């Protein structure tokens, strides 16, 4: 028998507004109304500015480790702009721009990185999940969230974000497989930013694209210029319409670049060349939109200056709100452990700075209890309470 073709396909690459200002009228015209484009641009500028603020907060000891989003603003923003407000956005930790567009307060994100769980208490009606720290786990949750919505008769879909590195984790493949085989409407978005800390994307996939990861699960796949807001909007529009109508998953690779270090604890100069970073700086998603708007007389220097003034104030206010939230009570981390705190945990909480944990204080003789109370008083005084 002759050898026949079992399967053949191609993967589209979508680019609408490139870094040189070339604009594809056919794909891009009317895609984003001018008034919206201005707002989207402002959102990216504000997010970028907050990144700088957060970096300085970390360096001055007012914030813990922080992962900058710089350079990747157009990916999650494009999705947030297209998705319905009641579609789930299930993200990792470099999707601030999209989350802010959805209405997540900036202080929530700041608070998380300031080492405070209260930053994760996302309002239910935002349909966003809290920041996920271990890589590649959240996509299964996205599948579950939309499966639940379908079960309840809602036509909500989910859009889940993860990186090129995370697509090496087993859970990523399980999420794709589940969503595809069980027909769960999830738009998978791989942010290929070329670096997983110091691991170059080629160590995470030897294939020519990350988009084709979706192919083996039977999903329609596209690759887009992730630094092109028009392209990310276009791709998410296509994918989300397909997914909503068919009830099946789809896959987008957004090619972007992590302009900053992995986090404030990282030093990317150890493993990547400045020339590479500089080349990507020239493909900046924000500058591209600004140039486009300027050419179309939608934007000028005066508007830019006014925006910067507004953004500085907005972000300073967000920091003030994050830092102004009263410090958690020293036993606050007990409170949300269970719907009802087990009796043993109540006892641990109430004696947390006094007795050894296995100890029942009532077993101690009275003189020992007196001495214990005195030691506690000294310790409390030393602690400044």
């Amino acid at each position, binding site marked *: 028998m002759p050898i026949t073709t079992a399967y053949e396909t191609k993967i589209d690459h979508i680019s609408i507004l490139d870094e040189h200002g070339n604009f594809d009228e056919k794909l891009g015209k009317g895609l984003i109304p001018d008034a919206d484009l201005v707002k989207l641009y402002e959102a990216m500028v504000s997010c970028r500015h907050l990144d700088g603020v957060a970096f300085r907060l970390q360096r001055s000891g007012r914030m*813990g*480790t922080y992962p900058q989003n710089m350079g990747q603003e157009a990916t999650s923003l494009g999705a947030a702009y297209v998705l319905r407000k009641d579609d789930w956005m299930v993200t990792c930790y470099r999707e601030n721009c999209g989350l802010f567009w959805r209405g997540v307060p900036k202080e929530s994100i700041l608070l*998380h*990185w*300031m*080492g*405070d*769980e209260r930053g994760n208490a996302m309002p239910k009606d935002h349909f966003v999940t809290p920041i996920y*720290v*271990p*890589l*590649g786990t959240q996509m299964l949750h996205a599948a579950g969230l939309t499966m639940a919505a379908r079960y309840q008769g809602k036509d909500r879909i989910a859009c889940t974000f993860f990186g090129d*590195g*995370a697509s*090496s*984790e*087993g*859970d990523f493949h399980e999420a794709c497989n589940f969503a595809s085989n069980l027909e769960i409407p999830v738009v998978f978005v791989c942010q290929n930013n070329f670096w*997983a*800390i*110091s*691991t170059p994307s080629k*160590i*995470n996939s030897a294939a020519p694209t990350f988009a084709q990861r979706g192919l083996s699960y039977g999903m329609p796949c596209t690759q887009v210029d992730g630094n092109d807001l028009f392209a990310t909007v276009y791709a998410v529009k296509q994918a989300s319409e397909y997914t909503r109508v068919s009830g099946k998953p789809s896959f987008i690779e957004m090619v972007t670049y992590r302009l900053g270090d992995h986090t404030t*604890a*990282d030093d990317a100069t*150890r*493993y990547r060349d400045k020339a590479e970073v500089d080349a990507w700086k020239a493909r900046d998603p924000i500058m591209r939109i600004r140039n486009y708007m300027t050419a179309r007389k939608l934007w000028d220097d005066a508007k830019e200056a006014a925006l910067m003034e507004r953004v500085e104030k907005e972000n300073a206010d967000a920091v003030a709100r994050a830092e102004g939230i009263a*410090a*958690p009570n*020293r*036993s*606050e*981390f*007990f409170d949300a*452990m269970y719907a009802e705190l087990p009796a*043993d*945990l109540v006892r*641990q*909480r109430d004696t*947390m*700075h*006094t*007795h*050894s*944990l*296995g*100890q029942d204080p009532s*077993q*101690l*003789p009275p*003189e*020992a209890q007196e*001495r*214990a109370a005195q*030691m*506690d008083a000294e*310790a409390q005084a030393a602690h400044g309470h």
Partner: protein
Amino acid sequence: MANLTLVQAINLALIQEMEKNENIVLLGEDIGVNGGVFRVTEGLQKRFGAKRVFDTPLAESGIIGLSIGLAMGGLHPVPEIQFEGFLGPAYDQICSHAARMRSRTRGAFTVPMTIRIPVGGGIHAPELHSDSPEAIYAHTPGLKVVMPSSPYDAKGLLVSALRDPDPVLFFEPKRIYRAFREEVPEDEYTLPIGKARTVCEGTDLTIVSWGASVVQCMQAIEKSSRSIELIDLRTIYPFDMDAVEASVRKTGRCVVVHEAPLTCGFGSEIAARIMEKCFLELEAPVQRVAGFDTTMPYYKLELDYLPDAHRVSRAIEDCLAY
């Protein structure tokens, strides 16, 4: 002799053993060019080449599963799991395979490997970067679990792990990665896995601890007027019950200190063994100072979670009140 941090001591142990044993290979996330996020493997790829020190895809199950194959195939892999909080995906490979391979093949296949894992809290790190899961692995038969508390111990214990015929989880307390330096001999020495160290001798009470908590115990001991003996377990499994027993028979009182949560923490096992071995010598119930039975809080409250010198002091006094 050189004055080294714990990070440098581990780095030195890796270099010296890799020079002796060409079957040792290192793998993990960011361990190559970047030298690991804590720089423990700094310079090793340059020195030994990418064939022996290599970056992997971001997949912890894959890292351990591949290492099991490498070990079964005759090498001694040293996989790094970047933070203890990322052990989750690797659990299946560690517990379902690495731990059981020798016994289920009755020795036909073995898994000599050393899994290096930064562990514990106290460094202002993000979520899932500060946990203490050693008891989970001590509870899994077939694994050895080591946790040094000083640069000198780290080097000697790691060399032993790298020569061990069975899988060893080598937990490195990140809180003391660079907290202090210590004289560490350049010359070869080993510290046996399964042997505790008596840090200081005393007659009134025994403290048993391991890892970074040993530092808090020393602070409490220095403030106390009592004569306290401190035993650093060094190895969580197999643990040196003989050393604990001998000490508690002498003092009649014991406090166990660890960062991990109280319930089913390894202190539970120590306390139970003391009951079995030293019941008639005990003057007081064994006291435990541990992390609480809560999720490890984010860093704003981590110092309220972690055992500190005050809580250790309180437990000492409570124990001596009987």
